[in-house]
């Protein structure tokens, strides 16, 4: 029987990737590792790659909830922004320790999501969306109003990336080393998500998306499951927020604003929210579009608004969703 088990294709053999997926993942990893070298060759720049990683991580964190657990969270900017503020405030008020700064951001955003979880879990469907977005906005107002601590409407300044203390000495995080710094944290976040999704917990999350009632009859408490998904999702998105603060040496209430929550959702949908790497593809397209559109038009909001509408009407399954369907057909 065990021989048969191993011979079976996808999803059956446990954690190992089947051959062609292994190859594709290897290519993807090499592309990411080499990005600072090939990005300039195609007329781009390293910071753009870093930005893709930041948005991709935020959206992948959200997608654990949105695409895999089936919870319509429209408030994830809150945890992204809290991650950014946690890191910024730590560097500004406490001390120049990068590790502590990242930790502070991740904890601030992650713990907030964990604490709000039980309040949010009580309802499902579109009402869930409304509660998540409303709560998200609370932190926006705190950041705006707590002027003397957070910098208010103008945003938090007065901090910057510090040299990174490692056992072998300190590294100055100029553009390229900083890319690898973010890539390392991206890898950690992505691994956590991948590991969760391949555990019984992740299987049950997908089950909750597919048929929550049935899952309850199997004895799994769906509310608790959604809470855990919400918390993990919050931690990962907060990590992305922390990276964002370090990338820009700045964070503002716009990092907490509800419009950003919507951008994260459309990134997931655009790339394909049923696919693990879908949000990454979505983030790459979003960042490139933003980079380009902001240089040619002032009406960036209309451009992205139009993108929302076009995706909904013509690409509801997302790019990777369309590709997957074509392959299996």
């Amino acid at each position, binding site marked *: 029987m065990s021989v*048969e088990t191993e011979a079976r294709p996808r999803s059956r053999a446990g954690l190992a990737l089947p051959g062609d997926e292994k190859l594709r993942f290897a290519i993807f990893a090499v592309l990411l590792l080499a990005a600072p070298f090939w990005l300039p060759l195609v007329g781009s720049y390293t910071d753009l790659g870093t930005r893709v990683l930041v948005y991709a991580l935020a959206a992948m964190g959200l997608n654990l909830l949105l695409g895999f657990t089936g919870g319509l969270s429209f408030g994830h900017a809150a945890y992204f922004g809290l991650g950014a503020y946690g890191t910024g405030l730590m560097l500004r008020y406490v001390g120049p320790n990068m590790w502590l700064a990242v930790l502070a951001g991740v904890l601030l955003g992650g713990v907030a999501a964990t604490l709000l979880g039980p309040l949010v879990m009580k309802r499902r469907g579109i009402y869930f969306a409304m509660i998540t977005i409303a709560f998200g906005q609370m932190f926006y107002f705190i950041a705006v109003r707590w002027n003397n601590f957070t910098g208010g409407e103008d945003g938090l300044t007065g901090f910057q990336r510090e040299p990174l203390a490692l056992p072998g000495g300190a590294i100055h995080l100029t553009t390229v080393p900083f890319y690898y710094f973010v890539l390392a944290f991206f890898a950690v976040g992505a691994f956590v998500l991948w590991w969760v999704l391949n555990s*019984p*917990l992740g*299987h049950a999350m*997908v*089950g909750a998306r597919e048929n929550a009632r049935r899952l309850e009859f*199997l*004895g799994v408490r769906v509310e608790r499951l959604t809470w855990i998904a919400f918390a993990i999702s919050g931690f990962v998105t907060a990590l992305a927020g922390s990276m964002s603060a370090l990338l820009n040496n700045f964070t503002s209430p716009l990092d907490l604003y509800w419009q950003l929550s919507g951008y994260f959702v459309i990134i997931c949908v655009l790339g394909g929210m049923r696919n693990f790497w879908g949000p990454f593809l979505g983030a790459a397209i979003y960042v490139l579009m933003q980079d380009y559109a902001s240089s040619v038009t002032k009406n960036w909001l209309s451009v992205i608004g139009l993108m929302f509408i076009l995706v909904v009407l013509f690409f509801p399954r997302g790019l990777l969703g369309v590709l997957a369907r074509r392959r299996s057909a």
Partner: protein
Amino acid sequence: MSLLELHHVSRRFGALQALSDIDLSVEQGELRAVIGPNGAGKTTLFNLVSGLFPPSTGRIVFDGREITGERPARLVARGIIRTFQITEIFPDLTVYENLRLAVEAAMGLTFRPFLGAAGRRTVAERVEALLEAVQLADKADRVASELAHGDQRIVEMGITLSREPRLLLLDEPTAGMGEEETAHMVGIIRRLNRERGITMLFIEHDMDIIFGVADRITVLDNGTMLAEGTAAEIAADEAVQAAYLGGSRPGAHA
């Protein structure tokens, strides 16, 4: 000893007397059919036994222990498992993933953070055993929603089996199935009963299945128990003949 006993069980909904004074006992290892026209109270009986709501009066005893009024989750833990008339599966997952999810839930692994290689192997073996039991091994990697209706019901049966039921309540297991699918399902039911000794109570309309499979038959009509006995006894029972099998009632499923 009887596995399931109902003593003077009644249930009313407002003015409607859905079941009145039902006395019923099902032996360990028995395959019992519950028949009766629509509105006879068959599904109400299932809902009572599976704990969806308590009886208005009367007692329910399972395995020598009173279970009257216990909640579904508690009863599931005791081994009383039911299926529904609507197919309840995880549509976008493969058959294998459906069963794996069920096995992991049944083993209580869902909220365990670490599952080692040994744990994964145990899960895989149990899933393979389930696939074997419901004869779906060749369709393991198909997405459940793309299967024929009959196969979906069988997937559901597999999910139900993951809880290792002692008493299985099947609400119209072959409803909407073609001839071949029905035969497949009936074969599975027989085998589970014979090889694993699972006691089953099933609601069914198809007379061929009822008389071909059931050890004993309980006939409900208008919320009361009309008759109970072996297939031969029921076929010969005059009250049943008159009320049900004789076809004198319009709309009966004979």
